[in-house]
């Protein structure tokens, strides 16, 4: 292994074993309600539409929001209850029913509530509820708003299943459930071809990842006979290194799909076809981070599979740079943000790939990112809302005066993401870079570079949108969004600013220790404070570069065409789609149409050909029946000779 990429791996004994307490009682018995509430909301909204459409149209969004909010309250109560338990007792299990069972195979509908799930619960239901509220305003004019909220509730429920799952199969249920919700929501405006295509693309690429997860599940059954987190974590030490490595790589493949990591990144930018609240909730704050969750959750596997961990780090590093580059080139505000999302998830994956030392920071960054990215997406939505759904930043400019609340809240998010000191992103990203540098220099430097680029593209976005000359067309009247949309923005902005408190006293590290285990301390090559300063400096460089390149020049309404190769490549998503097209789609299409032809003429041709051959033979033979009695007599004589000769041959031969 390349010494530069070699990572330390802990020995098995300090990986915590998942051993949930199923008899916790009290409020924990109602754990299932967290999922059931939004699920019920989804069912009422989607199925109920068939029965009481008119009334439901009017109150559907309220029902949806209420379901989500109730789930949030529930999560909060559970969280507090968990806080109240001793550190060793913070794994609560709930067995709802046996899902399927045959022979030695048994899968329970099991839930696991532990510190990790608890944080996710809060994030999902909390941010989810805010986005629900926001969507009330954002989708106010859409006739299918009821359905939209139904889908949103479905998503929340599925995401909760994902993070509350007690085994990999149930996790897969949630995993695919969010995929479905994502599919439905990306394609919500499916009368647009692009939306429908994007939805399908997202689903299909995710399915490629699901191959990994499915096979991982199969391998777990073959190896451990179970997929319960408890069972697997208990027995993982006994499995062979090879098995664990393969298992780790398979899980990574799954994570890559869901979290849009290279090479399965191509769907995320297209997914921006969905309504903006969807982009905020699913494609920024929650679903796309499921890959990170998966890696952290599977720590008992990855800790024993250093090669798989290395693979995570490589993938994550590539992705964080890849996404950052895309973010630089996009003029579509949502796509720029999506590139950024990719990049930030790269950071999280990177942290998760670093092992015990990084898990907590991965989750930390995941949470803060959830806040500030949701904030920014919703802000972007607010901008679009005021700009008649124009997403091209080149058509914006100087909007800060027209939508002050949006601007200010967006700015909070901006400062958080670039890692402006004391903002939430500052803490979380800094920790990741620090850990990365401690573990491996190259990776650390890449992460540092990524931070600089983040500073650049976010500043660019900020400048193009809210500063400079106004560039919008006549007839567009930018305006601030209604309260129902701005209040969530304000809340999220506050969280973006304050999210860093989680790290106070290493709280989050301690909180997650029952899940991730205690990290060995690796001294970073430089003191932590110095690293922080370097990071800040690099970010400042990026910001400055943006200032010089964007703010000091006019932004043309049309994107200039004569640009460098790098820009062209970045605009074309670094040829990710082109590669997929050339390597998979086009050969695939050719193969499929070839096979379809082959099926008809080849496989079926044998059958049809066989029958027509018999027919042809028959046609020829029937000519022998020429009507002349003498030739019949000849055939009779021939037959007689045949018979006699056959007999003679048998008897005397």
């Amino acid at each position: 292994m390349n010494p530069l990429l070699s990572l330390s791996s802990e020995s098995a004994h300090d990986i915590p074993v998942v051993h949930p307490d199923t008899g916790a009682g009290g409020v924990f018995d109602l754990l299932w309600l967290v999922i059931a509430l939004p699920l019920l909301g989804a069912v009422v909204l989607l199925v109920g539409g068939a029965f009481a459409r008119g009334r439901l149209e009017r109150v559907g969004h309220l029902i949806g929001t209420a379901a989500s909010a109730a789930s949030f309250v529930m999560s909060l109560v559970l969280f507090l209850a968990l806080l109240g338990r001793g550190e060793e007792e913070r794994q609560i299990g709930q067995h709802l029913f046996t899902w399927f069972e045959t022979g030695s195979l048994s899968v329970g509908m099991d839930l696991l509530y532990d510190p990790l799930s608890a944080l996710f619960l809060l994030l999902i239901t909390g941010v989810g509820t805010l986005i629900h509220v926001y969507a009330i305003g954002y989708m106010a004019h859409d006739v299918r708003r009821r359905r939209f909220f139904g889908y949103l509730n479905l998503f929340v429920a599925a995401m909760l299943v994902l993070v509350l799952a007690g085994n990999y199969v149930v996790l897969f249920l949630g995993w695919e459930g969010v995929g479905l919700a994502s599919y439905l929501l990306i394609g919500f405006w499916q009368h647009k071809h692009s939306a429908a295509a994007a939805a399908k693309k997202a689903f299909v690429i995710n399915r490629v990842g699901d191959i990994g997860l499915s096979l991982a599940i199969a391998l777990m059954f073959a190896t451990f006979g179970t997929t319960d987190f408890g069972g697997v974590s208990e027995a993982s030490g006994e499995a062979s290194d090879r098995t664990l490595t393969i298992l780790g790589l398979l899980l990574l493949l799954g994570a890559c799909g869901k979290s849009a990591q290279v090479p399965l990144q191509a769907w995320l930018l297209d997914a921006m076809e969905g309504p903006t609240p969807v982009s905020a909730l699913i494609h920024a704050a929650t679903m796309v981070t499921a890959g990170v969750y998966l890696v952290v959750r599977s720590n008992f596997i990855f800790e024993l599979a250093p090669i798989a961990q290395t693979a995570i780090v490589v993938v994550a590093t590539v992705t964080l740079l890849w996404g950052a580059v895309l973010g630089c080139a996009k003029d579509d505000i949502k796509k720029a943000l999506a590139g950024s999302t990719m990049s930030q998830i790269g950071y999280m994956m990177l942290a998760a790939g670093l092992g015990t030392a990084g898990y907590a920071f991965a989750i930390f960054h995941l949470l803060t990112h959830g806040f500030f990215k949701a904030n920014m997406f919703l802000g972007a939505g607010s901008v679009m809302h005021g700009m008649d759904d124009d997403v091209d930043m080149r058509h914006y400019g100087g909007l800060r005066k027209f939508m002050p609340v949006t601007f200010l809240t967006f700015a909070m998010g901006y400062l958080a993401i670039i890692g402006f000191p004391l903002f939430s992103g500052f803490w979380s990203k800094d920790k990741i870079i620090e850990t990365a540098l401690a573990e491996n220099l190259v990776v650390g430097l890449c992460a540092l570079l990524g931070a600089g680029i983040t500073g650049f593209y976010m500043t660019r976005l900020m400048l193009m949108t809210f500063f400079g000359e106004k560039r919008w067309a006549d007839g567009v009247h930018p305006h601030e969004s209604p309260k129902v949309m701005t209040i969530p923005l304000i809340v999220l902005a506050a969280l973006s600013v304050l999210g860093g408190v989680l790290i106070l006293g290493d709280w989050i590290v301690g909180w997650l220790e029952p899940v991730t285990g205690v990290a060995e301390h690796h001294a970073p090559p430089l003191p932590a404070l110095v690293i922080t300063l370097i990071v800040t400096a690099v970010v400042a460089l990026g910001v400055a570069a943006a200032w010089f390149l964007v703010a000091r020049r006019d932004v043309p309404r049309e994107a200039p065409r004569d640009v460098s190769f790098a820009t062209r490549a970045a605009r074309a998503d670094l040829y990710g789609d082109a590669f997929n097209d050339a390597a998979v789609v086009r050969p695939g299409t050719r193969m499929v149409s070839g096979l379809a032809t082959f099926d008809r003429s080849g496989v079926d041709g044998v059958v049809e050909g066989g029958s027509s051959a018999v027919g042809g033979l028959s046609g020829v033979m029937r000519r022998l029946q020429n009507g002349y009695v003498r030739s019949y007599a000849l055939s009779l004589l021939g037959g007689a000779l045949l018979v006699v000769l056959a007999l003679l041959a048998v008897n005397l031969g």
Partner: protein
Amino acid sequence: MTEFVKPSVEYAELWPLFLVFGLACLGVVVEAFAPRAARYPAQVLLTLGGLLAALVGVVLVARDITVHAEGAARGIIAMGGTLAVDGPALFIWGLVLALALMGTLLFAERQLDGGVTAFAGQAAAVPGTDAETRALAANREHTEVYPLMLFSVFGMMIFASANDLLTMFVGLEVLSLPLYLLSGLARRRRLLSQEAALKYFLLGAFSSGFFLYGVAMVYGFAGSMQFAEINEAIRNSVGNRVLLVVGIGLLAVGLLFKVGAAPFQAWTPDVYQGAPTPVTAFMSAATKVAAFGAILRIFYVAFGADRWSWQPMLWIIAILSMFVGAALAITQTDMKRLLAYSSVAHTGFILTGVLGVQAAGDLAAGEVTSTQAVLFYLATYGFMTLAAFALVSLVRDAGGEVSTISRWAGLGKESPMVAGAFAFLLLAMAGIPLTSGFVGKLAVFSVALAAGAWPVVVAAVVASIVAAFLYVRVIKVMYFDEPVGDGPTVVYPSVLTATAIAVGVAATLVLGVLPGPLLDLAGVAGGFIR
């Protein structure tokens, strides 16, 4: 040279045979003396009644028949050793008589063609001449057909129960000669009919030449015509084996010609097509039954000890017949020809049963024997073929029967009953379960497989697949093709044909659903006596 002993005639067992013969003679007398108008009812009643009586007689005889001296087989050797009245013979008698009864019903049908039967008014009148026109105008018809048929039935009965080569030859000729004539008596399309008669006759005579030469050879080998003695001679392997082998071959030619096995099938389509449809129906069913009776007897009784020498030959013939019949039927455009080729294929299937003979010791208790299988198959085949041809005669237009398949398009809608019955019979021929054809196939395949003739069974399966195609094709035409132009109409027959069809279809259904009794009967018929 021993002194002449007057052969004893076992009237108690043989009277159905004599009854048929007597009736035939009586028919000739009626033909000679009865007034023209009275001939039709007289002949029909005479024939029907006589055949029915003979059938009852066969049943009675069969009930009383005793166990033969040697072993399990039952029956007696009659007429000084020339006839064997045993289980299989009686079974075939009964079957032939039943088919003849149905055939008579078809012969007597007058409603289809404007009040006259399907036979020429005056066979001697040249087509297109005044004489013919007059005969037609007078609604004349040949009533000689009934005695002719009775003679033929008589021949068939002898054929199936002959216990020596000479009797068998006589039976062969007695059954054939009237059929040659009957083939040429069609009222419409007389040229074709006459041509069919000529071909049938010439080829039939040609093949009996082979048969007779075979008789001579076997006689030369064994020094006797008696089957039992031939068997003894083979067992003791006295005499010149070349003579025996050539003799077996030539005898086989004559017999296989009668059943229409490939490569002796050439006459079948032409004759089946050209002959009047009632005759075709009768002869396709009854001749095959009788001829297979003879084949079983001669191969099992006379050459049974030499099984290994003729079985391979039958393998070849069976496989050839199945394939030639099935393959050639595919491209036929005429329904009667199609059915003819189908009957060739069926010959192959029956032969599969014939060659499935095993030594009694190799059979498990309760296992189907080859005789049982063949007899059962013959019964199923006879009824379904006869009914199928009868149905063909119902589809007509102004020019008579319409047997061109493509013109049957849309028949399923126009006449669901007829098309349904025909489709059912076709499915039976294809061997679809719940029809008799399936059980028959199952029986013959299983005996062949049990005897180790798996290549034949495999070939039979493949041939069945090919054959299935042609039956399905006809059903498709009737049900799913759009009628082209003026389709033929279905003429509703009188009670006569309707009865024949109903019996055939019912037998096909019953033997498919509840084949047990008949299978048991065929089993009880048991082995041949010698």
